[in-house]
């Protein structure tokens, strides 16, 4: 598929990236906590992926390559983004498209995921890639261009913080866990 795109048949790009369209948009939302910014991140990711497709090493994972681009795009945009508190309010105010569910359930989920706003940008990236997207430590390190040790350190801090935040805001989730 990649070869087709590179040979000039650009229509092959859509089937190439369609399996990742939800992933990129969802990750963009989890990073930015804002629907419009998530679309911007996802769109820029796909544009860069197309533009620099020739640089992609075919021996490596295309999915991880896309995630790496998305993290790069996110970092570029994050310097302009509002602080975490504003983001959380924007996230709660916006109603992104998702599966049908009750408003109460959606709000509870949003508030639970808003705990991630308490993480530093690096902790959030590591946590999202490892714990939400299920990338391995090594893959996470490759995507973020940091060492595996750094991933472990940030991951450990991120998980501890998430536990503390949930214990503080939603203690019912952690009761009777002995």
């Amino acid at each position, binding site marked *: 598929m990649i070869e087709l795109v590179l040979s000039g048949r650009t229509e092959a790009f859509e089937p190439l990236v369609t399996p990742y369209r*939800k992933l990129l948009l969802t990750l963009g939302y989890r990073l930015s906590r804002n629907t419009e910014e998530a679309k911007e991140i996802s*769109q820029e990711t796909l544009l860069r992926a*197309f533009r620099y497709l020739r640089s992609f090493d075919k021996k490596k994972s295309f999915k991880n390559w896309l995630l790496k681009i998305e993290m790069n795009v996110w970092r570029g945009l994050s310097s302009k983004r509002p602080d975490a508190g504003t983001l959380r309010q924007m996230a709660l105010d916006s109603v992104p498209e998702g599966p049908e569910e009750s408003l109460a359930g959606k709000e509870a*989920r949003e508030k639970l995921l808003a705990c991630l706003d308490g993480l530093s940008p690096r902790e959030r990236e590591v946590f999202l890639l490892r714990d939400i997207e299920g990338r391995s430590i090594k893959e996470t390190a490759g995507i973020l261009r940091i060492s595996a040790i750094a991933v472990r350190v940030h991951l450990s801090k991120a*998980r501890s913080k998430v536990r503390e935040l949930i214990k503080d805001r939603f203690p019912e989730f952690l009761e009777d866990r002995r």
Partner: protein
Amino acid sequence: MNCSRVRRSLPLLAGNDLTPAQARRLERHLARCPDCRQEAAEIRAALAAVRTAAAQETFDWPEAEWKALIARVNSERTEPRRRPFLLPAPAPRSWAYAAALILIVGAALLILKIIPSKPGPAGLTETLAATPVLPPPALSVKEALAAVHPQDRPYMIHPRQETLGRVLLAAGAPPEKPTQDMMSMTLVSQKTGLQVHWTLNRNFDWEEKKK
């Protein structure tokens, strides 16, 4: 293992990010420590809650926006192959450092060879002429030097003299030869009779040494 050390590793244990040996050591501690066991359970529960919430939260592009995006992408052009823009430059290898060093040294040598050396100070003769010449030494030394190097003006270094700076100039070519661009001097030890003959060019670069 003490509790504080165990607790540092609990977040990694909760996500199955420890080696089996590390995990076994922690599990042994957890089996006998209720506080650490409680903390480990809370981290696992927190992770599970966030993962469940995240799994329910997936977004997709509205079809029209997706088509518009793909149309926009297709109007772009792929860049020619180059170093991946999102990757750091590859680490230079040792042979690259060596090649660079050889190139630099080679270029420096070439430049030194091509560029003519700077002409010496034009006023050397004048400097020599302006330098006060101290009284001639004992006749025997003068005679001896005149026999060996008749073009030189001999000068005897006084045994108590501590500096040779002015003496070197004073022992140069006679001022009546304005075109002279070589200078020689012969130092003779009065005690041992040892002679040292130096020839310097107009840049005061050492040319020749005779004993």
